[in-house]
């Protein structure tokens, strides 16, 4: 592919203040776009805010997000939310809508939407109203919608948190497949098992600060920061005061 470089994806001194509260402070890292990256941390650590800032939904209060050195927000990226919003139309039409908004010609809409919906195993539900699908099916539909745009990176916010184990396994399979097809994956989670199985690298956030950026094995066997050690032991207090967004 001759498309211009997107990576490294960098956060430089990234800070976000939301409602007078510092959700992120001086976060620095660079992602090469090959590794699957899990953003870990307790509730309220700033995981979702980081993802939104990278995706371009939340403007940085300080510092910057750079794509291959440029602050311009590229189109070839997509995000799947913890609770994806589906339009009141069929599952297939939801994917077609995303494609048409992004300027895909009418003639190719249907084929590409079918392709995406088939890859996540929802072809048999394509004509169902999207909003009556189960949580796991909606999550996979959201993955299909994101994937159909052929992004080079997909951000996933807590992709399996509210799902039962079999639905979560299906979603994991789709994530693997998306990555195998050459799309970079950045996801937040507080499920250690998921991070261990799916991620290659860990970004660990504690109270809005990045305390570790390490390969997954190193993180689980020899975490460097005291906060990560306590998190892995399950000792970090799970703040309920600040919502994880």
């Amino acid at each position, binding site marked *: 592919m001759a498309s211009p470089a997107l990576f490294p994806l960098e956060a430089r001194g990234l800070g976000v203040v939301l409602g007078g509260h510092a959700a992120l402070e001086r976060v620095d890292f660079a992602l090469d776009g090959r590794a699957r990256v899990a953003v870990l941390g307790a509730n309220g650590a700033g995981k979702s805010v980081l993802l*939104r800032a990278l*995706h371009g*939904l939340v403007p940085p209060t300080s510092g910057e997000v750079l794509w291959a050195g440029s602050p311009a927000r590229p*189109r070839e990226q*997509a*995000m799947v*939310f913890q609770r*994806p*919003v589906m*339009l*009141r*139309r069929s599952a297939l039409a939801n994917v077609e*809508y*995303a494609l048409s*908004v*992004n300027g895909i010609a009418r003639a190719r809409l249907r084929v590409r939407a079918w392709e995406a919906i088939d890859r996540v195993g929802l072809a048999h539900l394509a004509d169902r*109203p999207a*909003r*009556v699908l189960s949580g796991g099916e909606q999550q996979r539909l959201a993955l299909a*919608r994101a994937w159909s*745009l052929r992004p080079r990176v997909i951000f996933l916010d807590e992709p399996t948190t509210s799902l039962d184990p079999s639905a979560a396994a299906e979603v994991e399979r789709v994530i693997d497949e998306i990555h195998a097809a050459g799309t970079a994956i950045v996801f937040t989670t507080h499920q250690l098992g998921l991070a261990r199985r799916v991620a290659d690298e860990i970004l660990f956030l504690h109270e809005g600060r990045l305390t570790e950026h390490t390969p997954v094995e190193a993180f689980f066997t020899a975490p460097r920061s005291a906060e990560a050690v306590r998190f892995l032991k399950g000792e970090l207090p799970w703040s309920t005061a600040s919502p994880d967004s």
Partner: protein
Amino acid sequence: MHDILSSFGIALRLIAGGNAELWRIVALSLEVSLASAMLACAVGLPLGGLVAVCAFPGRRAMIVALNALLGLPSVVVGLVVYLLLSRAGPLGNLGILFTPKAIILAQALLVLPIVAALARQFVEDAWREYREQLTSLGVSARRAVPTLLWDLRLSLLTVVLAGFGRAASEVGAVMIVGGNIDGVTRVMTTAIALETTKGDLPLALALGMILLTVVLALNAAAYAIREWSARHHG
């Protein structure tokens, strides 16, 4: 008491017997109300959506104006439309004063703020839920308006019905700009007002019953649609 009861009897016979005058009035009423509701919705739904979603200069002023227009006295609207359409008025050369078109215009002006205000409320609530998702997909605020209006189509249908009900039950403005001319601009409400003062209670009662039935049916339909949409679309 006996008089009233016998009036009811005659009224029912008028309805059942297919009295031509009665049904002509009913047909004209429904026709102009439908047209004015359509006109008001064609402008009011997109307007409400734009005000809900898009940031533009004068947005706040427009919200205040729309809310103020909700309490508009209908005779004042009638008077304004009368002045506009009267021979010496700016739209006098259209020559539509005392025609059904004048009624449609006046009713549409009365219904417009209702439709726009309700649409704004619905769309604004939905935008809160959809905003991040749509922005993430690359949808601009302006592009989001038709998307949201279509996604809320079943809720908005109840807005359309409310607008139609409001138009059908309007008297004051319709009397002023239509003139209640027999066979030309006489609609249910103005006929009821006239026949009651004339003492022709059976016709007034018959029209009243039909009007009430129409309004009740509309509300029942709106309720049924909401229930159905909640079950089938989530």
